[in-house]
């Protein structure tokens, strides 16, 4: 399956999904005017990719500094798809990167950890000083 790369804009994150290496990374900010149109295609590709995974080790790196509520809903749909894949026997790890001083992002990560227990969640506070 072909890899997916979408360059970042001020209001959409960089999408770097290397399906061949089973490493999917999201980086930047997310507050597009129409979140569904941005994430619709991405989510479609992710679902196709996951459908072909069997006992695969998948690594997800998320490093988002800001996301609005409509992006949140779609990100949760994506995490839900990963969670399903983990329940289906894949080993899915989620690395949640954020600034070590950013309590809001830390708390958000904890929510994801709670909601999607099949994912191997790692909180990664980063010192940016």
């Amino acid at each position: 399956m072909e890899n997916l790369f979408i360059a970042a804009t001020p209001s959409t994150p960089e999408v770097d999904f290397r399906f061949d290496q089973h490493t999917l990374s999201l980086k930047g900010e997310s507050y597009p005017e129409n979140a569904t149109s941005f994430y619709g295609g991405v989510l479609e590709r992710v679902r196709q990719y996951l459908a072909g995974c069997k006992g695969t080790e998948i690594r997800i790196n998320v490093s988002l500094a800001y996301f609005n509520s409509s992006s949140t809903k779609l990100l949760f749909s994506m995490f839900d798809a990963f969670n399903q894949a983990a329940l289906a026997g894949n080993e899915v790890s989620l690395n949640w990167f954020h600034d070590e001083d950013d309590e809001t992002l830390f708390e958000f990560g904890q929510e994801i950890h709670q909601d999607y227990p099949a994912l191997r969640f790692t909180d990664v506070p980063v010192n940016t000083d």
Partner: protein
Amino acid sequence: MDLLSVDHFRRQTVHRLPSAGGISSEVDPVAPDTTNVTVLSRFARDRDLVSLPVVESGVPIGLINRNTFMSEMSSPQNQERYGPQGCTAFMDRDPLIVDEKLNLEALSFRVVEHGEQTLAAGFIVTRDGLYAGVGSCLRLMRMIANLQAEKNRQIRHSIEYAGVIQQAMMRAAREALAHTLQDSELVWEPRDVVGGDFYHFARFQDGWFGAVADCTGHGVPGAFMTLITSSLLVQAIEQSNPRDPAAVLSELNRAIKLLLGQTGPRAGFGQSDDGLDGAFFWFDEAKRTLTYAAAKTPLFVLDQTSEDFVQLDGDRMGVGYVDTPMDFCWTNQVIAAPQGTLMFVTTDGLVDQIGGPKQTAFGKRRIRESIIAQRNERADVISMSVLNAYSLWQADQPRRDDLTFLCFRP
């Protein structure tokens, strides 16, 4: 009317979008056998002539650009050698040629595709395939810039007027709040003139009902959602009971899901999936208790004897969304609110704003700190202190979301 006056009438009274023909001028063309000496004298005579079209039996075959031509003909040797020859030697044989009816947007893409030479030399305009004039890219740029400014102006005016309507819709609530709670301050700042944040306030004989909510999206779609929410909320209060904010949330959830058809599993990505997060309150004046029910919107309570806030969390379930069950029941929490208890509720726009030295979220901790530093002041002073801290944090970062918060002592 004869044909001529019909044409005149149309030109004068009917506004038409400008096209390639509208920005070209009829430059007298030359024939392919016109000598370079003649071309040179045309350029010398007319200082503003940028490009000279070459036309054969009415059909354009090339464009001679002043700069290219002049540099070729600059030396006396070349003037002597090429002067008597036909002018096709120095003409561009592949200039951009467009029909007069081509619209300016399409034209500008064609110009860019055609390359740098076209920007300098311009383009030839034809009518039914025959030469009609030469267009300048400078004029094209000016027209495009004007069109852009005009479009922006129209959109801005439209949104500004929508803002008048949106504020009118919430005016009654704002007045009821100011009347009922003397020590309160409501800040409502949409990111783009109109927004998706929303508040409601209504007084009853034995108390008051209040709501602060964040509808999906911001800008125009967000504002649409606040209009829907506003009217459905009024109905929901009538149909259930303002003294039971959890029931009002449930009623509103059902109403939004039905109105937007967000009842079944998602059909596809074109389908809407919109709703709101928010905190709903009922204050019982006799018992001095506050009943709080919320969708993902915490309430901060600071009573006079405590050092820090107590944070009450609502249910982690948004209102109206496709994934929210039709019969979901939110939870009421009842707290005592003795005189002097300070309450604070905000949408995520305040908490999540990026800023500070490391471009991180403003966060709840800084909000709590700026309130506690002013805890003995009136609600309006406290709100000002929160807004100041927020602005300092935001600094030169663009605002990411709408911002609404309510600070009050019931």
